[in-house]
C-alpha cells in the first residue's frame, strides 16, 4: 500500500515509517505541509497520514488546498494529531476524504488497523 506520511516531527515520522515499511507498505515521509501537498499532487497515494499542527503550512491548509479542485476524490486521509478532538476545526469531513481522526499517542497496531480499514487500492 502506498502511504504518504506528513508530520513535522521527525522522531514520529522515523518511527512510523520504520514500522509501516516493516509491515510491507511503501511509505513516503515528508516533514513539511507544503512539500506534502506538492507530493500529493504529483503522485497518487492510497492513504495519507497527516498531522494537523505543523508550522508554516498546517494540516488544515493542506486539506483545504487539496480539496479545492476536487483532486482528492479517491485518496483517504487519516489525521494523526495531538490536539484535543473537540478543538479540531475541519468542516468538510465527509467530502474531503478524511476517514479517521486518531489522537496521539496511539498504538502502532491501532494505526495499522485503521490504515487497513480505510484504504482502497490506488489506480
Amino acid at each position, binding site marked *: 500500500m502506498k502511504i504518504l506520511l506528513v508530520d513535522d*516531527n521527525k*522522531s*514520529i515520522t522515523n*518511527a*512510523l515509517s*520504520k*514500522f509501516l515499511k*516493516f509491515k510491507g507498505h511503501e511509505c513516503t515521509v515528508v516533514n513539511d505541509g507544503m512539500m506534502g501537498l506538492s507530493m500529493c499532487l504529483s503522485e497518487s497515494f492510497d492513504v495519507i497520514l497527516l498531522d494537523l*499542527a505543523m508550522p508554516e503550512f498546517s494540516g488544515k491548509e493542506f486539506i483545504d488546498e487539496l480539496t479545492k479542485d476536487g483532486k482528492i476524490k479517491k485518496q483517504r486521509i487519516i489525521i494523526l*494529531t*495531538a*490536539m*484535543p478532538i*473537540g*478543538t479540531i476545526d475541519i468542516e468538510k469531513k465527509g467530502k474531503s476524504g478524511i476517514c479517521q481522526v486518531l*489522537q*496521539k*499517542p*496511539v*498504538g*502502532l497496531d491501532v494505526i495499522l488497523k485503521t490504515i487497513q480499514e480505510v484504504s482502497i487500492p490506488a489506480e
Partner: protein
Amino acid sequence: MRSHPSITRKQILFCTIFFSLGTPLVIVLINAYHTEDIIHNSQTQLINVRSLTEDIAFRSLSTKDSKQISQVIVDLEIIKNNFNQMEENLRSIPNGNIAQNSKFQDTFTSIHNQYISYKTSIDLIEKNNDPDNTNGFSTFYSSVNSFVNSQNNLLDFLETMEIEIQNFIYPVAIVFVVVVVSACFYVIFTVAKWRTRSEISKLESQKLKLEKTRTLIETKYEELFRESEGLVKKQLEEHKQVEKQKDEFMSMITHELKTPLFSIEAYSELLSDSAFGNKLSDDQKESIEEIYKNSKNLERLIGDVLEAQKIEMQRLTFKKEYFHVSSFITDFAKCFKTIMDEKNIDFTILCKTDLMIYSDKERLNQVLRNIIINAIDFVPKGKGKIELGIKEQGDNVVFYVKDNGIGIPEEKQDNLFKKFYQIDTSIKRKHGGNGLGLVICKGIVEAMGGKIWVESQSGNGSTFYFTVPKTKTQIKVIESKL
C-alpha cells in the same frame, strides 16, 4: 419656595360689604340700646316719683300739719327736679322721635300743668296755714289724683315706647348676628383657604425638589448603567479572551506533551517487538517495558488533568442513548475479567434490574472504571473481593462497588473527592494514582444529574455509590469545587 397668600378682589368686596352693613347696624343697635336704657331708667325714676307723690299725699292727709306741709314742699322740689331731669334725658334720645311725639308732649304738658296745680294747692294750704281749710285740701287731693294720673299716662307711654324699641332691636340684632356669623365663616374659610394654599405651595415646592432629585438620580443611574454596561461588556470580552487563551494554552500543552509521548511509545513498541528482529536481553526488554509503562502513566495523567480541567470549566460533553443496564454491566465486567483472574480477586456482579436507561455509556464506563481500578489497588493480595452492583432507587439507578480493602477513615472521606487528595502520601507511593480519578467521577456524575458518595470504615473495606437518573434529565451545569 414658600409663597405668601395675597388678598383678592373678592375679599376686598366682602370686607366693604361687611363694614357697610355692619357699621350702621352697630350704630343703630347702640342707639336703640341707649334709648331703651334711658326709657327704662325713666320708668324706674317715674315709679319712684309716683311713690313719692303718693307718699306726700298720704302724709298731708294724715297730719294736716303746716310743718309737714313744709316738708312736702321740699319733696315737691325733688319731684320737680326729677321730672326736669327725666324730660331732659328723654329729649336727649337721638333722632328726636320721642321728643317730637305728640303724646309725649301732651303727657309732659299735662304733668307740668298738674304739677303747677298741685304746687298751687300746696302753696295755698301753706299760706292759709289752716289745717281745717277744707277747700284747700279738696283742691289738693284733686291735684294729687290728676298728677298721679298724668304720671301713669307717662308710664304707659314709656312702656309702649320700650316695647316698640325692643321690637325694633330684635330683628336688627338677628340681622347683625347673621352678618357677624357670616363674616366669621368667611374669615375661617379664607384662613383655611390661605392655609391650604400655603400647604399646596409647600407641597409643590417639595414636589419640585423631589423632581429635581429624581432627575438627578435618573441621570446618575443612566450614567452608572452605561458605565456598568461598558464594564460588563469589557469584562465579558476579557473573560472570553481569557477563556480563549485558556483553550489555546490547554491545546498547546496537550499537543506539546502528547507529541513526544507518541514518539516514546512508538519507539518502545518497535524495540520491544521481536518481530522487528531486535535481539534484546531480558533486562533490556524489562527496561523498555518500564519506559512504555511510565509513558502510559504519563498519558493517563495528562488525560485526567484535561478531563478535570473540562469539569472545572463546565465543558463536559455527553452522548446519551437508551440502553439496558444489565447488558452494559455485563460488557463492562468482561473487560476486567482478565485482571481480576490475574490478581485472584473474587469479582461478583449483582444486577437486580433489567431497566433501560437514558444515559452516556462512555461516561458511566469512565466512572465505574476509575472506582474499580481503585478497588483493585486496595484489596488484599490473593484474598481480594469486589462486588459490582446495580439497583433501582426511585427515579435513579444506583451503581455500587464494594471491596474488602483497607477502608477509609471517616474523617478523611469528605476529602476523597477533592483535587489531588491522597489519604496518605505513602499510599500514593504504594498504589499509584494521581488524586484526580474520584474528582473526575464526581464531576461526571453530578453533571449527569446524580450524586456520588462513599461508605467505609477503616480496615473494613469501602463501598462507593453513585446514582444516575433513569430517564431524560437536563444535564446540570455544576460548579465543581475541585
